[in-house]
């Protein structure tokens, strides 16, 4: 049976919804249909996918306006004759067709201080109880499809918040580490509030709604983190309790010595510079100075026929004429 699809095609300079009539068979998912489009009608239709089993989180897109994984959207969930509209994720810059630049998420992940191993335990000596690891394990189910990041209106509708706001994916990472039985850092809550922008979240729960792994992002990670922040910052009772009983938060391990604990990582924007150029790391290069941008094997002067430089006069003869 042929069905009608509308697929957004284009790139950063613009694009539009194109119509396709595609064969659909019983038991197929949207990704199957996209593959059929590629094989029969549009070989260059750009689309990310990997496992096609809902385990890698690559084929994130918006289907009939809802952020979803194409491999987990069964065609049988649409009404007969319903047009299916497929668009790229809206929150991130588009690269081409259904592929977007999701580097925002990786940059935010890089600002998140990593797991700090307990200083006094060697590998193999870790002992943790199942009940203690279960909460964090829920968050480690995350397949990094970034649907939650895409649907979160804090950055979806307000590009300017991207600088200050890390998004639900990183909030569950913060919760995961804060609830990790052996993590040696104690500043996760502060980091979540001050550097990740936990306060921007107004718990409207869209992240939980779109999560293909059914992680209870809001109830089990964001709200508990907000409450933990309240413990730390806004709760004078807890503050008094600590003063009176001379103890830190319940169960917090003793803070590691200052030398071991790197300073909280300040949020950074991308390491690409404004022109999208890569940074040059001279420090670690084997020779003094940067490597030749032309390659070590290039001898100067270059042979004239191998040079890509074109004199402006070749392209804009009117200038020369004007001078004449």
């Amino acid at each position, binding site marked *: 049976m042929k069905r009608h699809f509308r697929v*957004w095609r284009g790139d*950063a*300079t*613009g694009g539009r*919804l194109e119509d396709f009539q595609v064969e659909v068979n019983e038991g197929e998912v949207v990704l199957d249909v996209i593959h059929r489009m590629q094989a029969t009608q549009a070989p260059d239709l750009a689309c990310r996918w990997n496992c096609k089993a809902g385990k890698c989180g690559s084929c994130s897109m918006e289907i*009939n*306006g*809802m*952020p979803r994984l194409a491999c987990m959207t069964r065609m049988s969930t649409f009404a007969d004759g319903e047009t299916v509209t497929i*668009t790229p994720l*809206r929150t991130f*810059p*588009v690269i081409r067709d259904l592929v977007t*630049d999701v580097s925002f998420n990786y940059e935010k992940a890089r600002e998140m201080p990593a797991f700090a191993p307990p200083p006094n335990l060697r590998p193999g000596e870790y002992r943790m*109880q199942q*009940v*203690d690891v279960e909460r964090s394990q829920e968050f480690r189910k995350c397949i990094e499809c970034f649907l939650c990041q895409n*649907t979160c*209106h*804090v950055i*979806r*509708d*307000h590009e300017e*918040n991207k600088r200050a706001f890390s998004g639900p994916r990183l909030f569950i990472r913060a919760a995961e580490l804060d609830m990790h*039985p052996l993590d040696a850092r104690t500043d996760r809550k502060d980091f979540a509030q001050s550097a990740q*922008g936990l*306060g*921007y*979240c*107004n*718990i*409207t729960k*869209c992240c939980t709604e779109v999560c293909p792994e059914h992680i209870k992002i809001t*109830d089990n990670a964001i*709200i*508990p983190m907000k*409450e*933990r*922040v*309240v*413990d730390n*910052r*806004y*709760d004078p009772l807890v503050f008094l309790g600590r003063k009176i009983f001379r103890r830190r*938060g*319940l*169960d917090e391990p003793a803070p590691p010595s200052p030398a071991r604990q790197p300073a909280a990582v300040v949020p950074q924007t991308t390491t*690409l510079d404004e022109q*999208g*150029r*890569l940074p040059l790391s001279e420090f670690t290069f084997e020779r003094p100075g940067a*490597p030749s*941008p*032309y*390659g070590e094997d*290039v001898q100067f002067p*270059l042979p004239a026929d*191998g*040079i*890509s430089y074109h004199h402006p006069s070749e392209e804009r003869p009117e200038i020369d004429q004007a001078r004449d």
Partner: protein
Amino acid sequence: MTTTAVRPARPGARAAISARTLRRDRWWLAPLLTVTGLTAWVVYAVVRVYLHKWYWVEDHHYLTPFYSPCITDRCVPDAAHFGRVLPGWWIIPEAAFSLPFLLLFRLSCYYYRRAYYRSYWASPPACAVPDGHKRYTGETRFPLIFQNGHRYAFYAAVVISGINTFDAAIAFRGADGKVGFGLGNLILLGNVVMLWAYTISCHSCRHIMGGRLRHFSRHPLRYRLWTFISRLNTRHMELAWITLGTLAVTDFYIMAVAADWFPDLRFFN
């Protein structure tokens, strides 16, 4: 061959999709229902609170939760279990102690926040639908930063739920001072049970009971409490709506009996 270590500038534009949302399901239904439901309830509650009457059924000792604890000097003396300390100016509700805290408790409740941010604020009205605000700072600054005080409202709500329990308990005193039992008692009891369920299923309560622990295994009792509350907590939204319902029903029933629209259905005494 010439080479260079330059990567072309990456244009940062989002996909140019003209439609604000491509959702075609009835995403507007949920916020619409929320607005209707909450507005209707608030209107009813305001009207009731400023009626200043029909809150106490003398014969059966029923006191509506909207007037509990009754602390203005306009209160029927028998209904004022905690004294009459406030002047009876019309702007002051009889339950001037409890209502503000209950309002705060519900306003700062994590569920209600979701509900009214979505429906009244349209921030966002539904997932993947634009929120239509120019700027957005969430709960990072005044006044919304005070949402972080939810747990204080929770502490107050526990006290008030206790008072409601007390009201429900003394309502078992019949007209002659002995034990009596009628439909009003059932309604009051049902209301109190639901109020407790809603109050302790609160996210702050879940956190205080055990959520803040890092090692459940060292606190088995608190772990069991946390597990219990976590189970209730998944029903927090339902309980929020159910309690709105039971509050309104309880109040209406007591109003009707107090105004003699119909008599209380007594099982005995």
